[in-house]
């Protein structure tokens, strides 16, 4: 990947980082609305991590800001550890600086499903469609496993799903769920259905060509745990409401 410059706050002031981190030891990956994600190492030089940093929000009172950031990070870390304990594939929580606003996550090799789909759509051919169906099937099962243990993701987009193949040239990897910043511990059909709806919309928005393949996600999801069929029925209600809402503007 190409080297990235440190993110700036002003015209030329680099964003300050909490100790012990410095820009020279980090490589910026993404800069989202809430968090910056860097690639670096933790614990030893052979342990790559994704360092997720939520910088202070200048418009919020510092005390309140610290407390909110801390709560969000802790919620994210707790859900990750719960998933990890129960065999749902997510990154390890390697270290945590709750007061400083950062979370060190075990590095997941591979690419986001979004990138995998982008590449596929770029090539367009029939070829590889079988492989892609396989990928969709694994996505459905991964989401099902997560729901089964009582976790709803809250932001299930194709950027928050990673395809982590043992062999990086194939598509046949494990699906690793990432970005639990909005996750909740819930077994409500509604929450589960909304997860699926969000994923469906994400698909339609970014990969309309691949949209038919989404049926395969729903098919494997439906078979992945006992309550899944009920959730699929609930999904139809959620879609209906979604459509009404968009008609009302």
């Amino acid at each position, binding site marked *: 990947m190409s080297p990235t410059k440190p993110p700036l706050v002003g015209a030329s002031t680099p964003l300050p980082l909490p*100790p*012990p*981190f*410095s820009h020279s*030891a980090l490589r910026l990956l993404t800069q989202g609305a809430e968090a910056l994600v860097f690639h*670096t*190492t*933790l*614990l*030893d*030089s052979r*342990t790559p991590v994704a360092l997720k940093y939520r910088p202070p929000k200048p418009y919020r009172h510092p005390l309140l800001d610290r407390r909110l950031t801390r709560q969000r990070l*802790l919620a994210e*870390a*707790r859900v*990750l*550890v*719960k998933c*990890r*304990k*129960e*065999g749902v*594939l*997510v*990154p*390890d*929580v*390697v*270290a*945590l*600086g*709750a*007061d*400083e606003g950062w979370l*060190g996550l*075990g590095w*997941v090799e591979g690419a986001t499903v979004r990138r995998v789909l982008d590449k596929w759509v770029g090539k367009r051919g029939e070829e590889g469609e079988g492989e892609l169906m396989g990928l969709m099937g694994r996505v459905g099962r991964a989401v099902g496993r997560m*729901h*089964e*243990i*009582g*976790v709803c993701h809250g932001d299930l987009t194709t950027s928050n799903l990673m395809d*982590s193949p*043992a062999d990086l040239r194939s598509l046949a990897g*494990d699906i*690793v769920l990432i970005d639990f910043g909005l996750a909740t*511990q*819930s*077994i409500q059909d509604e929450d589960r259905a909304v997860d699926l709806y969000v994923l469906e919309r994400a698909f339609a928005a970014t990969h309309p060509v691949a949209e038919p393949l989404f049926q395969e996600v729903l098919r494997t999801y439906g078979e992945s*745990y*006992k*309550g899944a069929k009920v959730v699929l029925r609930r999904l139809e209600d959620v879609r209906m409401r979604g459509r009404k809402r968009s008609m009302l503007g």
Partner: protein
Amino acid sequence: MATVETLYLPHYPDYPIYISFFKNVSNAPFLRQQLLEANTAFEYAFLDATMILSPRHLYAATFRALNDAVHTRLKSRNIHSELVFSLSPNNNIADAYRRFGIQDSTTSLLAVKIPLSNHDITAESVSKHLGGAVEGESVAFGEEALAGVTDLKALRKVYKLDSGNKGGGGKKGKKGAEVVVNGNGVGSGKDERAEMEGVILGIMALKGT
């Protein structure tokens, strides 16, 4: 002279950490007594190596202790007691010592020294002191050294890795020991230790929150 590994944790290049590993230790009661008497010549974390899963397990506790020391928020007396404390899943320091610290019966020993800003302490001085103080066989610390030493069963118990699904819904048909940490983690196919490590690091990071 004892074999000493000098560890520099990423992002903390100014804080060398000295690690020594001994097998067949025969004077654990003496060493433990020095800690109880707060003998200043024995400022170490003395750990029972049967309770250390992997180098990363130890490094995670060391990182937490060092990072909390730098942020001046130690929960115990000093950085060495904090290291022992960091390994524990709960907030009871006596408990941490009982489970992870040296016991009179300890035969596999990890000695960790974090000098912070005391530059008089070097790998040589640590090697010399431990070489004289510990009666046992000095071996290089690493995965291989721990391979035959770690008590996986005791670790599973301490970190409650066998407690089954306590999560919300839909857990039917998948309860019991094997579900938790079940060879199905990131990088599936990795061995039991890697699976345990992923969960244990998380438990340690969340401790006290």
